[in-house]
């Protein structure tokens, strides 16, 4: 049987992620765990995350899971980052006065700030960016299988990732300006939105993940 480990480091949405993974077809077994051995033994690994980056990275380090995530990334096994889990994969985040992150991708995590405006009419845009927005699939990828172009996914975040170069960008979204909704590199795929809260489209993404071989 193939196993999917959802990394449990006390940050919020992991149960929703696990429930969505359990809901999609397949013979996979879902384990929610903070045990390094279980994570390293799993066929696929999800790094979820909700809340503040300081707490996320603090807990990952306290549980010594930062090195475990890096090991998974190096192992070639499929690794999926979700929301703050994605942001944690960059080098550092501006949140909480600056937090050093995992560095699986070159680049930073930046705030929307309080003066985000719609370029068309100058109107203030609310932060967090909360709700269903259209994702442009900027790179063909097995994780986008059977998901239509410009499908809406559910977002809720006040910070966004800014990779150092365009190479890893797999999806983009517009809210005031275009920014990154998904990044991919070899066996890693990561999304800013919440597939576990994105109805059918999100379940399809998880269905794709449980069958993905980690090859782009």
């Amino acid at each position, binding site marked *: 049987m193939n196993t999917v480990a959802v990394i449990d480091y006390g940050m*919020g*949405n992991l*149960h*929703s992620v696990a*429930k*969505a993974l*359990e*809901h999609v077809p397949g013979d996979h077994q879902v384990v929610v765990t903070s045990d390094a051995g279980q994570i390293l033994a799993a066929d696929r690994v999800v790094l979820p995350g*909700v*809340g*503040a980056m300081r707490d996320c990275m603090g807990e990952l380090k306290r549980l010594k899971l930062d090195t475990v995530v890096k090991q998974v990334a190096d192992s070639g096994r499929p690794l999926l980052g979700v929301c703050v889990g994605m942001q944690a994969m960059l080098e550092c985040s501006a949140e909480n006065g600056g937090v050093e992150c995992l560095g699986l991708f070159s680049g930073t995590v930046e705030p929307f700030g*309080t003066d985000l405006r719609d370029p068309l009419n100058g109107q*203030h845009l*609310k*932060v*967090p*960016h*909360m*709700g*269903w*927005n*259209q994702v442009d699939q900027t790179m063909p990828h097995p994780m986008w299988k059977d998901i239509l172009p*410009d499908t*809406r996914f*559910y*977002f*809720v*975040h*006040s910070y966004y990732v800014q990779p150092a170069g365009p190479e890893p960008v797999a999806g983009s979204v*517009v*809210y005031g300006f275009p920014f990154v909704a998904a990044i991919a590199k070899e066996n890693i795929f990561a999304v800013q939105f*919440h597939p*576990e*809260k*994105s*109805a059918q489209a*999100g*379940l399809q993404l998880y269905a794709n993940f449980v069958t993905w071989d980690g090859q782009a």
Partner: protein
Amino acid sequence: MGLAKRIIPCLDVDNGRVVKGVQFVDIRDAGDPVEVAKRYDEQGADEITFLDITASSDNRETMVHVVEEVAGQVFIPLTVGGGIRTVEDIRRMLNAGADKVGINTAAVFNPEFVREAADRFGSQCIVVAIDAKCVSDSSQGNGENKRWEIFTHGGRKPTGIDAIEWAKKMVDYGAGEILLTSMDRDGTKIGFDLELTRAVSDAVTVPVIASGGVGELKHLAEGVTEGRADAVLAASIFHFGEHSIEEAKRAMAAAGVEVRL
């Protein structure tokens, strides 16, 4: 192209059962929160809000199970409000699968609770619910001197607190979203209090959900176009099978509002 305005059906839950007579022609058990939530999900609801109206604290545990059941089968954001008074209440709801919790009366009695909750769980899951009532209209028509005050206990108890100032304060304290209900309009079916909605929406940096008064589909679009709300919440218009969420979205789209279809 861009962020869609959200339609949120609200379900009142009493001791684990959906009340206020939700009616669907082809539903097996209209009192089952899972069945009702699944139906709204299929119709394209953008989120679902559960309001726990259970009077007895003994029955609060039931709500946790409701959330667990729904979250295992419905994969859109879930908000739970009603009786959220402690950090432990929030933790239990989030662990059960809720994405956000609505805090109302407890915030009025102890604003620091909102700060503590946002610090602990993140602003994204803290919705502050505000029940507002118009308390003066000395302008007699031009609306410039209108004032709204917040009320607690289901709109029964006045607090003397200005609704707009309160909304701003709650955002400063860490609220990630405001659920704004007009007590003057709630149950009237004559539409949102658009002046109130616009005043609050313009005053805060976070999304505002308009609530109270929806009786026709056109009211939903008005909440966005005139009230400048980011989301609209309604109950009876959907529950009694008068309109589906899909119809509501088509009506909003026809009025020029971007929705998820």
